[in-house]
């Protein structure tokens, strides 16, 4: 069963088209990663899915409701966590949750808020102003707040930006628990390790959907071959490597250089010759998600720069 099933979504702000013919299918209960460079239309897309923005054209279903005509209904069943902390700094933790519970017309308001505070581990600090919380706690409060009305779908817009690794890991454990409970989670991120923790993912750039599927599918779909080069005087070799036939992408990783290309045998032959001449060693590597994404970007030009 699909939680999100949208086709051909378009959205422009003035003359700038931010989302182009975007189609997405997200299955119920899965964690769906949403990746792409800054300004690629991720936030706009999420806002269209939760009814904050109306698409210019396109059609689709979100939780069985029409994204164009039933945005008010969708809002009731979707939990949206904004990129920037957007709860009220000048309300206490409890007041923030209470306000949200009221807005969604929850029956046992006090019980729901108390339960959320308990679960958060913030029951003792319920009278603390939300603005005084640290980044990690703000993020947890925001997640608790958007889950308060028990939505079946969570839309999380870069929820872990600027959060330390431990808090990030705990956050993802929480997301996996929710997913097990049948809640669908669409999460946008820039972190590759987070992308790999998603069941499936989509990569969009400048409004276009470039790839989607499981991490393995996305990597395999690009047919990349990658070699890791190591040896003396490696750093000066980058410009020359970039001109080698078959080498489409050269990236530094610590003391090694990763060279990738779609023409596997061709790249291997030219690299072998290069390494012999320079006294370098080379070994094949599984292309990473990051290699794949950066390679994907080669084919699209930023319409603002074109």
């Amino acid at each position, binding site marked *: 069963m699909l939680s999100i099933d949208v086709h051909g979504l378009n*959205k422009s*702000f003035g003359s700038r088209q931010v989302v182009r013919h975007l189609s997405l299918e997200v299955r119920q209960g899965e964690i769906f990663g949403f990746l792409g460079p800054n300004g690629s239309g991720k936030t706009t897309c999420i*806002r269209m899915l*939760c*009814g*904050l*923005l*109306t698409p210019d054209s396109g059609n689709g279903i979100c939780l069985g409701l029409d994204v164009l005509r039933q*945005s*008010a209904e969708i*809002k*009731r069943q979707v939990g*949206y966590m*904004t990129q*920037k*902390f*957007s*709860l*009220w*700094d000048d309300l206490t933790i409890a007041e923030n949750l209470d306000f*949200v519970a009221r*807005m*969604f*017309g929850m029956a046992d308001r006090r019980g729901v808020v108390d339960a959320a505070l308990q679960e958060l581990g913030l029951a003792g600090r319920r009278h603390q102003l939300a603005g005084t919380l640290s980044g990690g706690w703000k993020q947890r409060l925001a997640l608790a*707040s*958007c889950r308060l009305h028990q939505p079946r779908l969570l839309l999380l817009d870069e929820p872990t930006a600027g959060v330390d690794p431990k808090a990030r890991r705990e956050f993802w454990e929480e997301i996996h628990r929710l997913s097990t409970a049948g809640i669908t989670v669409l999460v946008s991120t820039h972190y590759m390790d987070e992308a790999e923790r998603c069941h499936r993912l989509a990569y969009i750039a400048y409004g276009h959907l470039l790839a989607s599927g499981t991490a393995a599918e996305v990597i395999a779909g690009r047919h990349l071959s990658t070699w890791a080069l190591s040896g003396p005087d490696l750093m000066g070799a980058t410009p020359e490597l970039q001109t080698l036939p078959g080498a489409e992408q050269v990236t530094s990783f610590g003391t090694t250089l990763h060279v990738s290309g779609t023409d596997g045998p061709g790249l291997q032959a030219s690299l072998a010759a290069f390494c012999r001449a320079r006294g370098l060693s080379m070994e094949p590597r599984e292309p990473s998600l990051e290699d794949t994404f950066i390679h994907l970007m080669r084919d699209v030009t930023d319409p603002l720069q074109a």
Partner: protein
Amino acid sequence: MRFSLARWRAIVIKEFIQLRRDRLTFGMIIGIPLIQLLLFGFAINSDPRHLPTAVVMADPGPFSRAYVAAMANSDYFQILGSLQERDAHRMLDRGDVQFVVTFPLGFNRDLVRGKSPTLLVEADATDPMATGGALAVLAQLGPAVFTADLPGLSATPVPRVDLRLHRRYNPDGITAYNVVPGLLGVILTMTMVLMTSLAMTRERERGTFESLMATPATPLEVMTGKIAPYVVIGLIQVTLVLLAARWIFDVPMVGSLFLLYAVVLLFICANLTLGMTFSSIARNQLQAMQMTFFFFLPSMLLSGFMFPFRGMPLWAQGVGNLLPLTHFLVLVRGILLKNNGPELLWGHIWPLMLFMAVVLGVGLWTFRSTLD
């Protein structure tokens, strides 16, 4: 560190670029001096002329007609024709005329016989400043009229007209009676519009607007919900001003307090709706402040608070009639000083209602329930 002209230039250029991008500030820079100049230069006149005047002609005759003609020629009076006494007084109550001039029976006869006839002048003195010039002219009219225009007058010396002046509603011409009720409106305009205009832009600036919009709230709920607390604040302000008016300035309160509060409530709501609409148009709190100021300036100058309304040229009166404060001033003075009832006030109540409806419509229309 030496002062670097290059750095200084860079800063100046940057400021100009930013200023040009900030259309509203730029508009204010051009707009405020222009508006002030136009208002102070042309619209404001503390010696108003062409004041609407009702004539109650109990004794038509050559002398009384000549007197009316002379009044009209003086430029200070705009004669609205001859009326029944009752109608004329209603118009004075409603504020449609500034003066009622009554020529009593025997006016012409007394003049011919060389006796001083009486002329009853009733002035709406709620704004003492508005009537001063005209009354001074009226007193000097008498002898000149009769000698020049009517040589048939037998008696010499020409009898003086005995002017009986009634300053209605404010017999002593106390300015505070006019200013204090007016201040009520000015204070409400300033605080109500400002506070609400910041309310929504604050949410937008802090990013909390997005959280609000992600809930099932409708625009009408958000707008009216945000207005409600300020209604209470406004009513507290009014009570404070009224208490001060009563106990410090001794302003008479002859009208119905209930009616007064009803009118005040309407006025508060009109201002709050405007603030809310500013709030949904403005991008940030600074812009909201600027818009408030832009509205406040003409409200002060063109409403009849600072300068007599009838002293302004017609175009300025037209602009003034669009402002809620203009109508509120008439309403408050009407209730406090004249004991006007709802039927007399209606002419200034419906403009407030219309203002509120239009502004609310614009506000809801611009309110982006979705963020686009």
